[in-house]
């Protein structure tokens, strides 16, 4: 596959969230605000890209029996780096995301890409695959949070869009809305993109 194909594949065709149903937990938790979604998406992409790179670089030397432990260790280390960077440079967002930054480690997307692609492919391809998956993930998050923030707070990225005539929809602030919106997104994608009849 060409580099471009790799990207398109992991970002759209085999999108982690709507196709592979991975990384759902955080997709629902941080999508109450667009800013949180963006930062979380960037954090995941950062950790994913670097993890893919590292795993790919040492794939020839990694003994088979400790493959998963090594992957987990590498992932966890990069996520801690993301956590430290957030706390140091974006403390407000860090507070909002809270424990969900740490939960990037258990985000199945990372383990999934590392196992499926990075452990078997050259470094640059793996990085692109990782960035693609992260990008696709961020996209889904932004789409859901767009609706949730707009109708739940009347703002987008903190900027007021809907005037004071708007009554906030409390449900958009709470858990259930994320479930419904994700289901809706999957439905639309299945019909338009994959032509599931």
């Amino acid at each position: 596959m060409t580099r471009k194909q790799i990207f398109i594949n992991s970002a759209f065709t085999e999108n982690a969230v709507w196709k592979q149903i991975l990384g759902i937990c955080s997709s629902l938790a941080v999508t109450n605000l667009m800013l949180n979604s963006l930062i979380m998406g960037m954090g995941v992409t950062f950790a994913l890209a670097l993890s893919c790179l590292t795993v790919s670089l040492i794939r020839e030397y990694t003994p088979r029996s400790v493959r998963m432990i090594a992957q987990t260790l590498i992932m966890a280390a990069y996520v801690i780096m993301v956590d430290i960077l957030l706390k140091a440079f974006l403390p407000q967002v860090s507070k909002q995301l809270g424990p969900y930054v740490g939960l990037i480690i258990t985000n199945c997307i990372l383990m999934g890409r590392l196992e499926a692609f990075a452990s078997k492919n050259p470094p640059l391809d793996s990085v692109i695959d990782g960035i693609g998956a992260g990008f696709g993930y961020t996209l889904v998050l932004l789409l859901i949070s767009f609706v949730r923030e707009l109708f739940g707070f009347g703002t987008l990225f903190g900027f007021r869009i809907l005037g004071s005539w708007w009554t906030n929809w409390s449900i958009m602030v709470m858990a259930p809305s994320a479930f419904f919106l994700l289901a809706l997104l999957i439905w639309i994608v299945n019909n338009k993109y994959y032509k599931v009849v």
Partner: protein
Amino acid sequence: MENKTSFFDKPVWPVLFVLILSLVFVGILAVMYRASEPRIKRQQREAYEKTILSLAADSLASLSGLQAQALESDYPTSFKNHIGALDEDNFARKAFEVKYDGTPIAYVFDVGGKGLWGTMRALVATSLDLQTLLGLNVYDQSETPGLGGRIEEEWFTSQFKGKPILDNSSPIEFEMVPEGQKEIKPQQLRQITGATITSKAVVDMIRGELAQIAKSRTEEGK
């Protein structure tokens, strides 16, 4: 034909591999952490002080004729000029006094209490006689995001401004009313829809803490 087992086939290699990997990464993380620690601590201290400043800004604004906004943006100068830390032992908690022209005009206390899920901490500004609340900022809580977590929202905390909180040393009772209620009487407070327990917890925390502060003050004869 070579029949030597290479080092990499020995069972000790995987263990060694993981060990080396761990050491490398833990080492990198330790360096990153130490490097960023001072910055993070400084930011936390600044955020804390800015919160105290914003709680004090309204009282200062009415006396000094300056805009509350201007005072807040003038951090750290305005903080040094107007906020002084008080001896913790006097109040059994962190306390600050707000001064204008050297004269104290208000207090800010660091109070804590239990929420539904964990402890919560808040900075609360009161009048010098401790009878009236001047402001509230919940700065640490672990309530349910989107529900109890909304106690940090402006509309919730700002409703405490100007509320009488103590009658000498006894805490005043408040009536919790629905979030959407339009008319609010002085002894009523809006609670968060779906988070009535957390809302009440905040109110109880403030009442309890201030009652204690008042009692310890009269006991000390201050």
